[in-house]
């Protein structure tokens, strides 16, 4: 695997330039998201605009968890502490977005489906996925030896991810569900993604995802700083 931690990439990560992208996109999404026309569907009506916020939360979480997995695997290969720090911070922020996705989903459900929890498979299984990643966090905190901690959490990360894939992507499609994309149909199949919504939805996913990555890099840099300070004092 190529070495990413060159000074050039580090400088790039800290630079302001790529961060302008999520800022610009999110401002655009907020503006257009409310002022553009939205297709009026039964039950949902105007709330379909939630698609620009609720769904990207989950997509961002998935993306962050994938990146976290990659860093966990890198750690298992090379035993470099920085990979472990990346893995845990991507998982942390992924959890945050997952939590946001779940709560925004509950709010949306309360107003459209009538209950904030419907025992819908996707709702259940996504909550369980969050639980499993929380287990990952608890686990990390219960091991004191740094090396053991890193190794065990890397393996646990692999497990958590391989739990997430069937839980969120495979099982809900096979079962009866209130979410779009149940009973064997792919999600969003001609459901409501008309042209206008697409021009806002896709950028929204990118914008929120980049925001997630930005937040992760900040947290990660804090960790590296703490590491260095710890070294200096000891």
């Amino acid at each position, binding site marked *: 695997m190529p070495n990413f931690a060159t000074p050039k990439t580090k400088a790039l990560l800290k630079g302001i330039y790529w961060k302008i992208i999520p800022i610009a996109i999110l401002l655009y999404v907020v503006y257009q998201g409310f002022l553009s026309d939205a297709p009026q569907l039964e039950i949902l009506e105007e709330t379909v605009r939630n698609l620009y916020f609720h769904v990207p939360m989950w997509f961002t979480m998935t993306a962050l968890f994938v990146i976290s997995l990659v860093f966990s695997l890198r750690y298992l290969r090379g035993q470099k502490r920085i990979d472990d720090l990346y893995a845990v911070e991507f998982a942390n922020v992924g959890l945050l977005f997952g939590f946001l996705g779940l709560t925004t989903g509950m709010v949306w459900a309360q107003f459209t489906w009538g209950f904030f929890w419907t025992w819908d498979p996707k709702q*259940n299984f996504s909550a*369980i996925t969050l*639980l499993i990643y929380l287990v990952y966090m*608890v*686990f990390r905190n219960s*091991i004191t030896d740094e090396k053991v901690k890193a190794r065990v959490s890397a393996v646990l990360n692999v*497990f958590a991810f391989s*739990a997430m894939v069937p*839980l969120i992507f495979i099982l809900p499609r096979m079962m009866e569900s209130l979410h779009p994309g149940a009973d064997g149909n792919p999600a969003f199949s001609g459901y409501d993604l008309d042209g206008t919504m697409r021009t806002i939805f896709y950028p929204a996913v990118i914008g929120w995802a980049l925001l997630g990555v930005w937040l992760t890099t900040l947290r990660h840099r804090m960790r590296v700083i703490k590491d260095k300070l710890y070294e200096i004092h000891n």
Partner: protein
Amino acid sequence: MRKDLLLEWREKNALSAIVLYVLSTTFVIYQMFVTTEPEVWVALYWVITLFAALNAASRSFIHENSNLRFYYFQLVSPHAMILSKMLFNVVLLGILALLSTLIFGGLLGFPIKSVKIWLVISLVGATGFALALTMVSALASKARNSGMLMTILGLPIIIPQVLVLVDLSKKALMVLPFSVYGTRLLGLLSIDIIIVTVALVFFPFLWKD
């Protein structure tokens, strides 16, 4: 690998402890419920089996002290280690599931329409529990507060399986063709395959100590 299995078989006290557990909990429930609705029967069955499984599987890695483990480390490859532990747990929990079925059936009646289907469901469930919990136990053994951690960690990992199993069991209360169970059973089995594959690839990293 056979050596491992032999060593595990010596842990007969594990089996008797679990049998005792199942008997006592079922007895308590018997006292509480005069008759059980079929759905309640199913729910109770899986709750009890779940907790018994947690108890049983946590003994896999946690009760060995470090000297014994070092000895094992010299002897066997990590693959043999994890496979034998998983196999042992699968058998153990399989016996547990069957025992639970008998005890439940004896005390509370047997509302499941087809014994064949129930055998399949309960054994697939037991296998799934065994595999998942063996891995969790391997991970938990690295931490300090192993016992408690095992329960806390084991539960979320197992819940999806329990949900699917309860769903299947409820279907088994009625007479339905086998195709109804097909996809979900396949799902559970594929979860098992994933667990074993991931365990085989990644357990060696855990074993290095």
